[in-house]
């Protein structure tokens, strides 16, 4: 028995045998085992698609008059068929260096990882075109890279491409922490209408609606607080009007300015 040293996954091949009589041929590998009854002296033929899992196999020939073993490697097909593409995170703040990571795994038609080095391209693009590109070579079937998030909020397409195969993920670049919170107060029906100026991050992106701004009014050892979500970029609340009260605002770990209410003066 003289099997070929290696065959391509899913391809047809034959194993010549010698001698005479009947025997059983086994091909046993990490994820697949095949058995054939063979007439010794005739080659054992395997059609395309019979042996398709890449790996190292042992070939056993057993019969009344024969017992032989050999080894056989099944290697992935050279042509990529599918891409596994892991992109992290799906959402991140703008202006984050190396915040976006992409890892690609290249498979053949039978989902064998193609370990042969292959060139891969990873592109980050927004509505106006490609903004960042990296070309990497796979090592043992894997390639990965890191990219910076943009300064401007919005979704970007993260595309991995090998040959004419590609896979796309969407990354949401969201505004960062508020850069500064500026509040103003005005009397309203005997109370105080306190509101922020439109809140932006340090790159000038508007902080999304729903973000909580905490207003605090302190007066004579008393305190009034309220968590208000931004609506249309502004947080607005009515608070008690105490002359001499101090009013401040904060969002997360970012504090804003403080105003001293002097009774409308």
């Amino acid at each position: 028995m003289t099997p070929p040293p290696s065959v391509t996954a899913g391809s047809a091949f034959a194993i010549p045998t010698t001698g005479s009589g009947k025997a059983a041929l086994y091909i046993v590998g990490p994820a697949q085992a095949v058995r054939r009854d063979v007439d010794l002296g005739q080659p054992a033929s395997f059609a395309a698609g019979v042996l398709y899992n890449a790996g190292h196999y042992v070939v056993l020939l057993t019969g009344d008059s024969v017992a032989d073993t050999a080894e056989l490697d099944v290697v992935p097909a050279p042509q990529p068929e599918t891409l596994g593409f892991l992109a992290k995170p799906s959402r991140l703040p703008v202006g984050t260096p190396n915040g976006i990571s992409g890892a690609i795994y290249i498979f053949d038609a039978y989902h064998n990882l193609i370990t042969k080095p292959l060139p891969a391209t990873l592109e980050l693009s927004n509505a106006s075109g490609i903004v960042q590109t990296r070309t990497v070579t796979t090592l043992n079937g894997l390639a990965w890279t890191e990219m910076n998030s943009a300064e401007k909020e919005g979704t970007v397409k993260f595309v991995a491409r090998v040959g004419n195969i590609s896979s796309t993920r969407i990354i949401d670049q969201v505004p960062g922490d508020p850069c500064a919170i500026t509040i103003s107060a005005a009397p309203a029906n005997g109370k105080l209408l306190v509101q922020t100026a439109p809140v932006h991050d340090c790159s000038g992106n508007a902080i999304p609606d729903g973000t909580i701004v905490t207003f605090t009014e302190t007066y004579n050892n008393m305190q009034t607080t309220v968590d208000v979500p931004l609506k249309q970029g502004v947080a607005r609340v009515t608070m008690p009007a105490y002359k001499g009260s101090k009013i401040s605002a904060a969002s997360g770990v970012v504090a804003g300015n403080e105003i001293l209410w002097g009774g409308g003066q």
Partner: protein
Amino acid sequence: MNKGRLLAAGIAVATLLLLVIGTMWPVTSAVAYAGGGQGDLLVAPSTPEAAANDLGTQIRLHAWDKAYSSLANKAEFTQDQFIHDLTGYALSLRTYATLDGFEVQPLHQTANDADMIMKLRWSTVVGTFEDKRNVHATRSGDHWAVNWPIVPEQHVPPQVIPVNYLRWDVITSGSGDDWGAQDVEAPHVRIVDMHPVNRADGVVVMGELLNEDVIPAYVSVRSTLLAKNGSVLDSEGSFDMISHTLLPKQVTPFVIRFPGVDLSDVASIRMQPLSVLVSASADPVIEVLNQQYNAPPGASLTGQLSNQSGQTVNVAHVISSFYDKNGQLIWVAGQYIDRALQPQTPVDFHISVPEDIARNVNTERTVVSTYVLGGSL
């Protein structure tokens, strides 16, 4: 009289006697089912305390007719108003609360008048709350009757409150998507403060959790105490002492209790914040008004909650964090509000602070989480 008749008469008399004894001096379980706590259920209210006790018993049994008719000032309000005063005008914790017990403390008494404090301990699904009422009792003939200090319903003026609230909905990936397909990530949350303290009943781990993301998060915190040899001493969760729904950039305090564990046995603490992406709404907005820290003795944080939205909030949970002069978190405490928060109608809250901690309190911060009936899915 022959023996048979004597025996029959003896059984009858003994039975009657036992019934009378059982009724006049009932066993504890019988007293509990009869709504009382005093064991003198058939005694007429010949004292102001007895009148208040009888009233408490009737309230406990939900015997509203008897309770209302026993009041001295029932002409001032209807029976429905009396019932609603106790069970709430809108659906709230009071609505299904059961009176777990009550206490009557006499303050002042003359021949025909008496002042007392009635402390009603109500049991609700989220815990107990105390309803303290200053009651006045008057004498009428040979019996006393209670003047019930009714808290009138506060009516919200008819109005239209425009609501254009923000809401986040989530679509998750389907099971048929390809390998490696991304889902929307869990919100990014961060513990910004953590502080363990040793208390008489065990270790208390408290801290604050920030949602640093731009989407709402459903959060909880789990804490595991590890001994010096690395073994797990105990593992507990924040349960209801946290505001589980955090909007973007919102901070919640949390408390995790480890009963029976001594801090000296703890070598390290493993904190596990959990965040889940959920559909959420930015409303209702609750304003914490006139929050005031009252220094010891009897240290407490008092204030009012005002519902700025147009919908009724059925249950509100106030959680306050207390800081020392260095800004270090030193205590977290909470209180469920037993009355519903009607729009624009302030409701008082009162959170007690342990005396030993109260001395170090410099500032405080309060968050409110809310439950609206039918709004949880």
